[in-house]
């Protein structure tokens, strides 16, 4: 198809798709009138059973924990794939190192500390208040990357060490599966919550939820680090310099 024909055909198709979706929406209850039983039941069952106050995270890591296992492995497989796609071609790259100014370093270090602390806090309290392994993991990885952006390349190098990152990432993804298998080995269903529910709304609530939450956090943090490192290698620093 030439581009012009494509746009015409596409417009017709999108009009049709839009009409279909509109037809479906007309059959929905009005916004805010949702009455489905699933979420309602979870809102009432989960807190007494698990003592975690964040029902979304309890859903993510316990009630529908298998979805999250799949999700962690999606992230894992995607990062493996990206490594496979990108690592080959940048082998002969030259190392480009820019020493940052002292002020930049101090500021960078502070920002890094802040981001990493925020990330860890998000992970730690994820199943009590908003937050969780994914959100915290991305924040921690982002914080670690600020080191790189602040220009002190040397201090970022541990975060680029494949021999360190790959096993850690695998421990996060595999750890989730192992927690699931542990329950199976003890005679319960896969991913059964094995520990007592603990105190309502505290860090000791939720049984296995904190374990899975931390496994996810580890997986996400190191997946993101590998991801960023693969993409950023030797490119962002020159970019930052050329734009400053």
């Amino acid at each position: 198809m030439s581009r012009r024909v494509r746009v015409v055909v596409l417009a017709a198709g999108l009009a049709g798709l839009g009409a279909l979706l509109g037809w479906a929406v007309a059959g929905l209850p009005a916004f805010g009138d949702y009455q489905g039983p699933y979420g309602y039941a979870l809102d009432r069952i989960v807190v007494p059973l698990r003592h975690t106050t964040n029902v979304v995270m309890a859903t993510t890591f316990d009630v529908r924990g298998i979805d999250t296992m799949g999700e962690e492995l999606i992230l894992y497989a995607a990062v493996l794939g990206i490594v496979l796609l990108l690592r080959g071609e940048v082998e002969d790259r030259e190392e480009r190192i820019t020493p940052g100014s002292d002020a930049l370093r101090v500021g960078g270090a502070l920002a890094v500390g802040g981001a990493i602390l925020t990330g860890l806090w998000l992970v730690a309290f994820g199943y009590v208040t908003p937050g969780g392994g994914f959100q915290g993991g991305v924040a921690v990885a982002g914080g670690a990357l600020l080191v790189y952006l602040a220009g002190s390349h040397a201090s970022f190098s541990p975060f680029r060490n494949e021999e360190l990152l790959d096993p850690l990432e695998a421990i996060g993804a595999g750890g989730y599966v192992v927690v699931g298998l542990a329950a199976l080995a003890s005679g319960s269903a896969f991913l059964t919550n094995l520990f007592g529910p603990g105190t309502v709304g505290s860090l000791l609530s939720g049984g296995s939820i904190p374990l899975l939450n931390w496994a996810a956090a580890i997986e996400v943090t190191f997946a993101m680090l590998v991801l960023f490192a693969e993409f950023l290698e030797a490119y962002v620093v020159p970019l930052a310099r050329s734009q400053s």
Partner: protein
Amino acid sequence: MTLATLVPLQATVLGLVALGAPLVVLTRDPLRQSLVNGVYGLSLVLLFVVLAAPDVALSMLVVSAVAYPLVILAAVARVRAGRPGKDDATVDSSDEPEQR
């Protein structure tokens, strides 16, 4: 927050999101687009907050403030660095005749 203030707020944020999407799509230069996309991401964060979904809002926040920009900017930089001097990463208006 009472319903009286929440509903107009939701409508406003929905309007922002609805306006943001075509802006992102129609910004054809990837570098500029990643900035517009960042702003669009923040409007989504606001929307999720007013839809009582703080966890999703947080996710969207870290994704649109950390993950997307880092990956996109790095990709843009690498695409541009690929062939020095010739910046055809942003060529999008070159509607040269095609034989298809």
